């Protein structure tokens, strides 16, 4: 797994591009901790299937995946995993209501064409959604923009504005507001640093929005 090289091949214009800087192991471990044994799971943007493999082996989950990058999808299939080549924007609509217990979208929300619709689909086909995304409200982002007047260039947001696949960045507070508007219950959340370690701003969303590099949310439909 590891971080994808910056010089990835240029894709045709029409094809959506997913977020590239994945530092997944710790991030995935936090997600895996949220999923009970035996669950039916769909991992959107599953890469080479590390989370699926882990959930299948350790938790006897029925875990499946969608991956937009053909090389990674092929590696996952060659490992015997139920992964399809596809993308969040186009393929979620083809799953039936309530097909999964958990639908996971790890560090991909900001790179999809229609994040709001993707969230809606996730909570249509799954009872729970686990969403992680890089927080654009982090103090470094605010400081870079304020002090230099240029788009921030950090470890997390490391691609220039004209070629970043991250077309829909948001802050933790933005995300919470969307969940409120669309009627999703926030059953849990974590703010973590870039290495996926838990950060100590457990109690306050506003502090998390300032100091958390990555956010991880567990959502469900409000009943």
């Amino acid at each position: 797994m590891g971080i994808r090289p910056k010089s990835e091949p240029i894709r045709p214009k029409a094809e959506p591009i997913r977020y590239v800087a994945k530092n997944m192991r710790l991030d995935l471990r936090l997600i895996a901790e949220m999923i009970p044994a035996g669950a039916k799971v769909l991992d959107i943007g599953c890469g080479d299937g590390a989370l699926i493999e882990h959930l299948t082996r350790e938790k006897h989950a029925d875990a499946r995946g969608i991956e937009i990058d053909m090389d990674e999808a092929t590696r996952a299939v060659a490992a015997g995993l139920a992964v399809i080549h596809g993308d969040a924007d186009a393929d979620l609509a083809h799953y039936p209501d309530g097909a999964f217990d958990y639908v996971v979208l790890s560090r991909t929300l900001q790179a999809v064409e229609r994040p709001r619709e993707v969230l809606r689909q996730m909570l249509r086909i799954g009872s729970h959604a686990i969403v992680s995304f890089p927080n654009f409200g982090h103090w470094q982002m605010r400081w870079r923009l304020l002090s230099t007047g240029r788009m921030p260039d950090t470890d997390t947001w490391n691609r220039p504005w004209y070629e970043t696949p991250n077309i829909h960045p948001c802050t933790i507070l933005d995300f919470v507001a969307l969940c409120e508007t669309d009627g999703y219950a926030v059953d849990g959340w974590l703010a973590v640093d870039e290495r996926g370690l838990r950060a100590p701003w457990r109690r306050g969303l506003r502090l998390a929005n300032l100091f958390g590099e990555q956010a991880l949310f567990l959502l469900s439909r409000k009943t």
Partner: protein
Amino acid sequence: MDEVVPFLPDVAHQRAVFADGLLLDSGAMLAPLVVAYETYGTLDANRGNAVLVCHALTGDQYLAGRHPVTGRPGWWENIVGPGLPIDTDRFFVICANVLGGCMGSSGPREEMTDNEGNGIGRPWGTDFPSVTIRDMVRAQKRLVERLGITRLLAVVGGSMGGMQALQWAATFPESVFACAPIATAAHHSAQNIAFHEVGRAAIHADPDWCGGAYWREGRLPAQGLSVARMVAHITYLSESALTRKFGRRLQGAKAVTFLEDVFAVESYLRHQGSTFIRRFDANSYLTITRAMDYFDLAEDCGGDLSLAFRNTPTRFFVASFSSDWLFPTAESRAITRALNRAAARTSFIEIASDKGHDAFLLDEPEFHAALAGFLRGAADAAGA
């Protein structure tokens, strides 16, 4: 073709005979039913390691090793064998000649039977009843039962073989643990039916076809069958593969002379046509192309393909090739989405290849790795 081209000599194929016959989709009763087949590897004590491979339009049961009729290597020799993706060290591999074929199974070239199932001393020819992909699958099911196998670990097939694999999973879901439809579609498209019709028209137009009774006249519709094969062969390749292999090269000349010039690609196609006629029966070609044209799996369930796989216990591996315009990726994606709608456990990849439809037969390491991984995963899950 002026000289009479002899058909390759027949050999004794391994056959299973079912005296009670098979009731076909057309309503006709075919008795006895004969299924010619080959097996590779060893069936384990639990009879749980059987993999059925379904062949394409002009394929046959000889997957690997030397073909007893043509003397050439088996058509999937790079896939089926010890240590290969369909690993004969681990799996018991079965391949049957399709119903309507010409390598020993019941078909137009075999002796016609009367209502009591007795041979009447002449081939079926065009009197052989229409068959469907589902008829082919039912015939294979009889063979699999005869071999003592209740559940196949996997059914694998490309092109028309993929149609059979899909039909297997739809008709006998409890008998198929894993299903791998490759470079195929859930129905034959209008364009594909059109190409088939050109091939059939070429056979019909050949005076040596004799209205289908060429066997009586001791003739072969070589010209017609050869043209049918040439047209079909173009559809199996891609524009870029043809350009890469032949470009505008001339056969045995450096520049166009406007006399008897032959482009290399023409020479290649003629060769494909002339070798084909010695191993394939024209009436079989008519019967099998029709079966493919009839195929529409969604039609059997009111137009919604996902209903064909409702509550399926089968796991699927769908694969397509990027330059395949006969069974393009869109068809495989449609199958995948129907399987998703049915909440089936599904893998799907499109392999980047410039080799066209034929890529599923050729050296495609990524495809081979993915198929091998899928089968390994299925075998581990099934405890085979």
